[in-house]
């Protein structure tokens, strides 16, 4: 029995030997893998901590941006109050200056008529005319005020035009807040993938910005080119080709669209280009 089974047993021994050899090699590989994981784990923990810290700061960043917008609005409202008050006073002054001259003229004419009727003495009459001329010149001295008043009113109008910057910068800030929110959403998704802790960061989210309430491409441009372009389009003339629109959807698409090329990430210049290089 033993002699006939010997080849079978030998085969099994060879197989066992091969398995032990493979096992030894696998053990070495597994040990190497454990060593690698041991090195990687602290790095992963550091990345996770850094991501959590960054996403945790984002609500504060958007709150600070909102504070800037609110402070601008308060200051602009105060300036508007002062400008409107100054315009009312200027208008009242202009009305007074414009009204004085005709009233003075009418009074002088009436006085001349009375003098003609009742003052015969030539010397007295001459003195009366001299006094009338001197008094008549006084209202006319208001005339040089009018250009000054017009200039002051024009300056106040230009202040009102410049105050439109508040609306424009508020939209630019809203666009930045929206971008921060988008970045935070993507970073949170990355943290969930690394740690499988889904939902733990929801309480620290950036307050969402309604994408319909701002124009990411808003500019404070006094050159008149934008209005000229709009006028050309409204009149049916062919305007020159310009930059593509930068909308909240472009900002979102930056993170959700397939990367161009092999896993190419968006660069800072790509993000800056969404804001027209501002």
């Amino acid at each position, binding site marked *: 029995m033993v002699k006939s089974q010997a080849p079978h047993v030998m085969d099994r021994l060879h197989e066992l030997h091969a398995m032990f050899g493979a096992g030894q090699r696998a053990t070495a590989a597994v040990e190497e893998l454990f060593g690698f994981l041991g090195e990687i784990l602290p790095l992963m923990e550091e990345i996770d901590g850094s991501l959590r810290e960054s996403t945790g700061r984002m609500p504060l960043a958007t709150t600070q941006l909102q504070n800037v917008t609110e402070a601008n*609005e308060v200051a*602009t*409202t105060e300036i*508007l109050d002062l400008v*409107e008050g100054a315009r009312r006073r200027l208008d009242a002054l202009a009305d007074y200056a414009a009204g004085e001259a005709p009233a003075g003229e009418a009074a002088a004419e009436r006085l001349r008529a009375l003098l003609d009727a009742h003052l015969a003495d030539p010397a007295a009459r001459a003195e009366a005319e001299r006094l009338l001329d001197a008094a008549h010149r006084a209202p006319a001295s208001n005339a040089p005020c009018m250009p000054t008043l017009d200039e002051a009113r024009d300056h106040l*109008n230009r202040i*009102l*035009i*410049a*105050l*439109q*910057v*508040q*609306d*424009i910068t*508020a*939209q630019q800030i809203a666009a930045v807040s929206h971008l921060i929110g988008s970045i935070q959403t993507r970073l949170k998704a990355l943290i969930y993938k690394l740690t499988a802790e889904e939902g733990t960061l929801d309480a620290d989210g950036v307050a969402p910005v*309604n994408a*319909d*309430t*701002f*124009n990411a*491409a*808003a*500019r*404070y*441009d*006094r050159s008149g080119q*934008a*209005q000229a*372009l*709009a006028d050309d*389009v*409204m009149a049916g003339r062919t*305007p020159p080709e*310009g*930059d*593509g*629109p930068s909308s909240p959807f472009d900002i979102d698409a930056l993170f959700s669209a397939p990367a161009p090329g092999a896993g190419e990430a968006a660069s800072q210049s790509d993000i800056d280009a969404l804001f027209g290089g501002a």
Partner: protein
Amino acid sequence: MKFLVVDDSPTMRRIVCNALRDIGYSDLVEAGDGAEALDQLDAAQPDFVITDWNMPHMNGLDLTRSIRSHDRHAHLPILMITTRGMKEDVIAAMQARVNNYVVKPFTPQVLREKIDLILKTA
């Protein structure tokens, strides 16, 4: 002539109203977004609408479309005043059937020109 001024920024509404008063229009009502503006159409019966584009609840483009499909107010002149200055924006506004388009920041002179032009062709 009564103007309905629609903008979610109180500052911009004041600036537009000041500019309108400068050029002789003082009968003014205001709304903070498109939805509020639609309510004002029946309540205030304006003769002219000046609207921003980017607003919560209902933006200026949707407001324009709603007015143009309204039973009684479809004929109202509409001037859009907005920060959106791209060609595509102006085309979209034209397709929604605004009467004219002003890009912020604007001057009272531009506002007067556009209003005069709209009233002349109305």
